[in-house]
């Protein structure tokens, strides 16, 4: 597979804050690649450098064969970008926005309609409505259509699903998977750890540094501990209790259970037996597989 994006020793600081600290990674053509990390991790800075909207302090990056500094004009013609904040023209209608973006790239809606058909059809009944009057989900579909209308080779999406409900998030990822089938390289950032599983490969990012780069399956496989799911009626109190034990390496609330790892070779069954004799007599445990969030937290605290 050929390389779509190469990033070498990229660093960027804002005054004393290091937003990106020597980032190295490469992304293949036709891949869905995820930047996974919380706010302030450096995801937006990285995407802005790759889309030639921001200059790095050190290092370089190549996107689709072009250098982000010297060849910025070519890159701008060949990438699609959907920023985190809705940045279409609120006073223009749906159709006017799309016509405008097609015009900027010297193309027409007609010429590239096949690229956006699946997505645009869903909002076409509202094509005479002003963009500012659309619902959140419809705005997102319009923004994605506008980012695709010039047939980009690489699509950058900065937190497209932040603040979006679980159903709309699912639908958005279904759209991305369809686009991938057309050979588009997709770079997407998200603070939702569960979305990592929907990417081909991900970079886990925290405070400007990459914690790990791999496929979600391999990241999960490399979790270095035996992980237990712990159940009880009052998980909050049990979680505090587990955290106070000297044998505990980590104990985190996860929905209706606690994810628990142990130091050294302590036996979980022995500890549970002891706990049950005290106040938590309904505790039960089973071994479970780690998820991306388990891995992220483990890497964060390393």
């Amino acid at each position: 597979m050929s390389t779509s994006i190469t990033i070498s020793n990229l660093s960027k600081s804002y005054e004393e804050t290091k937003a990106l600290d020597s980032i190295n990674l490469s992304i293949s053509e036709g891949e869905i690649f995820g930047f996974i990390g919380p706010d302030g991790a450096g995801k937006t800075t990285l995407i802005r450098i790759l889309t030639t909207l921001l200059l790095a302090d050190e290092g370089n990056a190549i996107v689709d064969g072009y250098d982000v500094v010297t060849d910025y004009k070519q890159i701008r013609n060949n990438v699609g970008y959907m920023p985190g904040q809705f940045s279409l023209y609120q006073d223009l209608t749906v159709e006017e926005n799309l016509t405008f973006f097609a015009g900027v790239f010297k193309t027409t809606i007609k010429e590239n309609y096949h690229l956006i058909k699946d997505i645009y059809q869903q909002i076409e009944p509202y094509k005479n409505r002003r963009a500012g009057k659309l619902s959140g989900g419809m705005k997102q579909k319009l923004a994605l259509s506008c980012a695709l209308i010039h047939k980009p080779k690489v699509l950058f999406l900065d937190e497209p699903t932040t603040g979006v409900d679980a159903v709309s998030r699912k639908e958005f990822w279904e759209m991305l998977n369809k686009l991938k089938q057309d050979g588009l390289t997709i770079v997407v950032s998200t603070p939702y750890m569960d979305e990592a599983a929907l990417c081909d490969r991900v970079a886990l990012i925290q405070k400007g540094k990459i914690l790990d780069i791999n496929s979600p399956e391999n990241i999960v496989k490399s979790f270095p501990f035996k992980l237990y799911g712990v159940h009880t009626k009052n998980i909050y109190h049990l979680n505090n209790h587990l955290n106070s034990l000297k044998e505990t390496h980590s104990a985190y609330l996860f929905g209706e259970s606690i994810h628990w790892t142990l130091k050294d070779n302590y036996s979980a069954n022995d500890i549970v037996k002891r706990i049950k004799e005290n106040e938590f007599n309904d505790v039960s445990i089973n071994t479970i597989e780690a998820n991306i969030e388990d891995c992220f937290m483990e890497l964060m605290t390393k």
Partner: protein
Amino acid sequence: METTVKVNNLVKKFGDFVANDNLSFEVYAGEIFGFLGANGAGKTTAIKILCGLSKPTSGDVNVSGFNIYKDREKIKRNIGYMSQRFSLYDDLTIADNIKFYGGIYGLSREKIKSKTDEYIEELGLQEYVKRSISDLPLGIKQKLAFLIAVIHEPKIVFLDEPTSGVDPITRRQFWNMIYQQADKGTTVFITTHYMDEAEYCNRISIMVDGKIEALGTPKQLKEDFKTETIEELFVQLARNAKND
């Protein structure tokens, strides 16, 4: 059990559009109540009413013992509120933010002083005291915003997506603070898009197209709707709405 929020047949219309369609529910003292729904389901409209910022079209609403029609100003004074979008003044120092909010709620100078010391101690902010809020990492900022939202010891605090974008460890520390507050008897009324967080609530409601379609403990709801997780249940309910 003491009731902090009592909503009966609440209707809110904007022109012909029915944003809240006959909502009825109660929230009890010391309860963590998750208020879930898809974007546009009508959550924000309902929260604005509960916070005394907007009047219902019809129906009865009682918050912290005050009636929504007669005592809206008293409701505002007796609740806490925190949102993801705006919480603290970035250009003010930590101490000034605490002083400002304490002042708004009419706390005495001594009380503000002791709260300031307490919060700085609790969050380990000694080195940040004289710095402006913008210097704080997001996670700490959100924790501080939460403490400030309950500075006047309200019976209920409304948290609107307080953990969006926060790293996974801080998100859990934030939930620890929520549990502690609830243990003290404060009612916590929370919205979130993280479905695992829905499982941490004592009870949740799921709104679809202006109506409450599910209400109960996470365990009970999963049994009733025969789903493995709250996420599954949420998707099931919200998808039905979109297919209408």
